[in-house]
């Protein structure tokens, strides 16, 4: 605990610059994520939402800037300490990114098997609990990813992300490709898990319904940086043209309306 307890911010990004060749994706990007909140990252296509996620989780080395997670700069750590920290978060990739040669239960057990020495019986029990917690049916554990629907793959991916009881969960477009009912159910699942497990959720999304339903704060990516962070009300009041168009467009009004009624 110690150091990270002092920091309200579980993730803090300062002056981030990422680029591919001469194409600069982020420049002087600052972002703070508070412990225990659900933050939604929005932005037009190509503004580098997923790139930001990759930079924070260390899948991509930034050209400049500092990224602290749990109050430590991960790039400065030696490899094994870095791995220790990496166990404290889970990532759900867009299509689940399940290992296709393993069953769902085995997928969930991969991080447990690799990082902890647990008896097989306990791993089976824990996998069963995770499978049920993410709302998968009882027979899903023994199935292979190719036998699952898109929604079930996402749930399985979430179960694997939660395998080591992480403190932060990164979600890359969790509701993309789901039907509206499935998407709403997935939103509720994330909210419920976040509340029971006390998770911090970092969510890249395009889905206005998700933003309205479960995000505590929203960060808008544009002009290579985070132009504004705030609650939904802040977004509605902001006068940046892109934000106005995004949050006052017809689809946004529809989402707001349906949530108001519900």
């Amino acid at each position, binding site marked *: 605990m110690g150091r990270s307890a002092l920091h309200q911010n579980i993730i803090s990004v300062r002056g981030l610059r990422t680029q591919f060749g001469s194409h600069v994706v982020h420049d002087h990007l600052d972002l703070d994520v508070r412990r225990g909140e659900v933050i939604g990252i929005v932005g037009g296509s190509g503004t580098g939402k997923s790139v930001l996620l990759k930079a924070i989780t260390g899948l991509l080395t930034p050209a400049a800037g500092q990224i602290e997670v749990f109050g430590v700069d991960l790039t400065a750590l030696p490899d094994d300490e870095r791995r220790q920290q990496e*166990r404290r978060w889970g990532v759900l990739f867009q299509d689940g990114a399940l290992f*296709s040669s393993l*069953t769902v*239960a085995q997928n969930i057990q991969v991080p447990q098997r690799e990082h*902890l*020495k*647990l*008896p097989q019986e*306990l791993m*089976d*029990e*824990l*996998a*069963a*609990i*995770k*499978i*049920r*917690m993410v709302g998968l049916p*009882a*027979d*899903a*554990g*023994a*199935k*292979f990813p*190719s036998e699952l629907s898109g929604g079930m793959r996402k749930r399985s991916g979430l179960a694997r992300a*939660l395998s*080591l*009881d992480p403190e932060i969960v990164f979600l890359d477009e969790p509701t993309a490709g789901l039907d509206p009912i499935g998407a709403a159910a997935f939103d509720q699942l994330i909210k419920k898990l976040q*509340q*029971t*497990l*006390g998770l911090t959720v970092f969510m890249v999304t395009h889905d206005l319904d998700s933003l309205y339903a479960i995000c505590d704060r929203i960060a808008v990516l544009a002009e290579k940086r985070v132009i504004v962070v705030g609650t939904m009300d802040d977004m509605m009041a902001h006068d940046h043209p892109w934000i106005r168009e995004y949050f006052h467009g017809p689809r946004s009004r529809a989402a707001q309306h349906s949530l108001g009624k519900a």
Partner: protein
Amino acid sequence: MSHIADLDGHLRRLRPPQARKVEIDLSDVTALDTAGAWLFHRTAKVFREGNAQAEFTGASESHRILLDEVARNDEPCDIEPPRRNFVIQILDRIGRGAASMWEQAVSITGFFGLILVVMARTIVQPKRLRVTSMVHHMEEAGWNAIPIVTLLTFLIGAVLAYQGSVQLRNFGAEVFTVDLIAISILREIGVLITAIIVAGRSGSAFTAQIGSMKVHEEVDAMQTLALDPIEMLVVPRVLALVFMLPLLVFGADLAGIAGGALVAWTSLGISPTMFLNRFLETTDLVQFWIGIIKAPFFAFLIAMVGCYEGLKVEGSAESVGQRTTQSVVESIFLVIIADALFSIFFVEIGW
């Protein structure tokens, strides 16, 4: 999570006590995750099954929620795929293998017929031939393969001459090395090596190209636009290979004989002029034609299997990989079978 294994061991050894009522005091617990909550829940469940009352006390609000959530989700769940008897599994695999081989044979024969029909239609309506695509594949699969094909057959010709000369020297018949090289390269090795290289190089490329188009639903898109994938994708590739493989074999023949001639010169002292004289004197032109005639047939087989496997790709990128492997193995297999049939045929007609 990091101490969970020790805790699991301790709690698992804990037997249900004799007492009727057990209170599990959680007031000293500072942090609790799902794994920990599960262990408490499981222990309490074991106690309850031993007819004791088990209750949690002193749990903080968030820990209470977590415990309830774990309890609610404690339901039986399949973990391992069902396992079957070993013997039955083996029989199952053999049966499936045999059945799928038969299906494969039937459907590839169907595909063969389909290509012939579309090619016949192309002959009637030559406008339907995609010339650009065909020329592109002629360059890719034919022209660009020349360096590797000639290099390899040159080396094989050299090795053949060297090994042959060592054996023939025992009989004092070194000069027959020329016949050995000429006949084996022209008749068999030139065309077989070329076909195998092309199967590995271009047959696999055909499968991967068409397969990835299949994955991205490009083939379906073609069909909805009333374009025939056989006409667009398969026929140009088949024709390109059918035209180019004989030329490649010609190059391979030249290179193989050149390799043999070089070794004959350096290690046997047969000068290139002598080699050429002997070659022209003893080798019938028929030997050359036997090799060349086989080429378009092999080309057809390779391109057909490559395209067929490509069109069979389904769903994922993984399937592209599987099909590509399958395509190379299958086309080399068919080429060698066809070569055996040709060899019987040519002997029967007395060539």
